[in-house]
């Protein structure tokens, strides 16, 4: 009898212990994020979220397409809750592959303009980067410049610098033109660019901007944040930014909820927080980009360049056209 009592008691003890450990496991909330952002930049933002919400963030970083394959392979066994990547082409691919879940959230819809979201919020833009024109003021006047297409005209013969077509930002720029102007006109424009090149294409926007300052070419196309990084180090850097009035090409860093996410509630909590004005300021300033939430503050260094008129095309269209863009660039010999 005593033995049975003892057994009962010890069983109860084990059960209680087991139950509390389960509860504890449930209590310690955490989410897992797959991101293509630079760890140095993104880590402080995740830490801020943890501080405010108590939800711990695990993350893995790699290139967007690599993470997409990872999500595909892991399928239902994945521990990823949120997928974040630069370039709308990658976000589009992930949602096409059925990896992202639609999210109904008034908070997100209020914070983010519809141009920067997938219609059912499978992905949401978190920061905006502009790919615009840069020029050497010693050789070019502000009034000489018009827009991207103008760079294909004879006037710019032997004066243009471009980044390699292996880069996703070059690809998205051409993709957006295919969507806006059609493949024929775009192909002619890109051909014009190539014949105007002053030197081989560059493998980085930083090198390209430095080449403009060094006078190797007069004008080029680059992402605004590379320019900001240089200006921060060297305020006297001899290159100026130009915003085409008929629309500036923009791209986003964005995120979405993973379809097989084991912690959907916390994942939505993270995404809503990420679109808030406070978090948006962090996202934008980590890399001198623009916030997607219009109420968020812009970094003063970036704000000094004035406002611009972003291309109105819904961004996912550029994702659809990326393959065609790369094929077009192969055809015209854009390296």
């Amino acid at each position, binding site marked *: 009898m005593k033995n049975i009592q003892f057994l009962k008691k010890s069983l109860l003890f084990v059960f209680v212990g087991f139950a509390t450990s389960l509860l504890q496991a449930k209590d310690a909330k955490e989410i897992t994020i797959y991101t293509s952002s630079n760890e140095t930049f993104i880590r402080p933002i995740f830490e801020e979220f943890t501080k405010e919400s108590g939800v711990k963030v695990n*993350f893995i970083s790699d290139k967007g397409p690599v993470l997409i*394959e990872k999500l595909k392979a892991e*399928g239902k*066994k994945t521990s990823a809750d949120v997928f974040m990547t630069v370039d709308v082409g990658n976000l589009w691919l992930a949602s096409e592959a059925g990896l992202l879940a639609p999210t109904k959230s008034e908070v997100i819809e209020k914070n983010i303009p519809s141009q920067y979201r997938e219609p059912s919020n499978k992905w949401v833009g978190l920061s905006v980067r502009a790919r615009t024109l840069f020029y050497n003021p010693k050789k070019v006047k502000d009034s000489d410049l018009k827009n991207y297409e103008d760079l294909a005209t004879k006037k710019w013969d032997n004066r243009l610098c471009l980044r390699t077509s*292996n880069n996703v930002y070059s690809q998205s720029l051409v993709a957006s033109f295919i969507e806006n102007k059609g493949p024929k006109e775009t192909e002619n424009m890109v051909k014009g660019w190539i014949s105007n090149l002053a030197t*081989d294409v560059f493998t980085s926007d930083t090198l390209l901007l430095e080449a403009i300052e060094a006078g190797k070419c007069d004008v080029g196309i680059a992402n605004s944040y590379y320019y900001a990084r240089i200006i921060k180090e060297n305020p006297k850097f001899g290159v100026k930014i130009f915003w085409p009035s008929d629309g500036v090409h923009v791209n986003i860093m964005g995120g979405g909820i993973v379809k097989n996410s084991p912690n959907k509630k916390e994942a939505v909590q993270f995404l809503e927080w990420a679109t808030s004005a406070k978090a948006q300021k962090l996202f934008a300033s980590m890399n001198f980009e623009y916030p997607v939430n219009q109420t968020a503050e812009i970094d003063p260094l970036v704000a000094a360049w004035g406002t611009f008129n972003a291309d109105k095309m819904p961004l996912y269209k550029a994702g659809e056209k990326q*393959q065609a863009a*790369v094929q077009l660039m*192969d055809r015209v010999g854009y390296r």
Partner: protein
Amino acid sequence: MLLLPLGFLLWKSFQISPELLVHVEKYLLWEGLGNTVLLLISVLFLSATLGLSLAWIVARYRFFGRSFFRWALILPLALPAYVVAFVWLARFGQSLPFFQLSCILSFCLFPYIYLILLECFDRINQSHIEVAQSLGMPPGGVLKKIYQPMLFPSLMAGVALVGMETLADFGSVSLYNVSVLTTIVYRSWFGLQSLETAAFLAMVHIGLLLVFVFLTSKVSRRRLADKSSGVKKDRALKEVSPITSLGLASYVSLVWVLSFVLPVAQLLGWGLNDLGGFLDTRLLERIINSLVIASGAALITLFFALVMTLAKRYFDSASLGYFVRLGTIGYGIPGTVIAVGWMVTLGILLGSFHHLTFLALLALVLGLSTRFLSLAQRPLFSAVQRISLSIEETAKSSGASTLRVFRKIHFPLLSSASGIAFLFVFIDTLKEMPMTLLMRPYGWDTLSVRVYQFTSDGMWQAAAAPSLVLVLVSLLPLWFLRKQIQ
């Protein structure tokens, strides 16, 4: 283990869309293939010239600074090619990309050939040469009859390593925008958004790689007529006139300065400009993580390589030979491709396991061993080829067991090659990025990942500080090797 990821790629490559196949064939494939072969040939020629001449000079002549350079010439191994590439790009701009790239890769990779040959020169039996010379054989004959058969397996082992690493290189070629097979693999995957096309091109790449591996092993076997006893003899150094000594010293130091001192000096310059880069709160953690992963990978890879080498020795069958060669091609496959293949295999089987630190580390280390097996296997294999079969037979006929043969003959004769093998894998793991990035446990930062975070975004000056630390950490094992080499 290697075959699973390759199987995944093969399966994917069959699903390539005909439209993209036509496109790739028309615009990308032939140029990429041509550039790859051209780059391979020029890097092999340049690095073999450097490696052979330097090993010869250092092993045979007494000149000023010899014992220092004997060791110092392996130091470029500590520099990742992509880091040297961004240094050169910043210094010399992007003109003559092909020429610059050949130089960069050769300067980074020649130590493989140098080190393997040096070990070989040390083991060539001096008495053979003396006998030949005393019998009136001309120097050309000595070279042909004695050096060539003994050197060839080693030279080919080095050449194979350099060739495979050149074929696998993505970091440096992409910085110079030279279109080779690896870059068009990525263009197809990331740009054309077609993993299938990328897998198809990766298969073309592997085909080329197999041809290369086949050629190098064929050449090295054909010449393998003589086997030395492999006993270390006193080295007889040639005395030379002061002028020749100066000439030799200046050639050797020129190569050393170009391949090691200049890149490091540039990194130091950038690093000192941005001292904040060194004030990295997680630095110690990163160093320890890098060391843990590198030693784990080196040990496991060495173990696999030893098993393979001895298996081939004991059961010398043709099919086993093919299998062993197939097992070592991982080194010639671009890091990301093999990493993704491995990740997909594990992902399908296990889901994600980055929260289980030990399992993730084990998967990472095993994955690395599939990639670096060749690095460990080549030196061991060329060393085992030099062990005369007659020694084994004598031992066996006098009643020694297989285990005893291993302990008393193979182990001592292979120990220095094992040291080199361990070191090669250790250092390459420290520099390795794509697999580490993809497979590491949550929060496990390493030095190479840190370098990548900056270089991936063109922030090269910021990458200088972590690159320097990476080089310093890689120098540690090279320092341990110093005694053995000198």
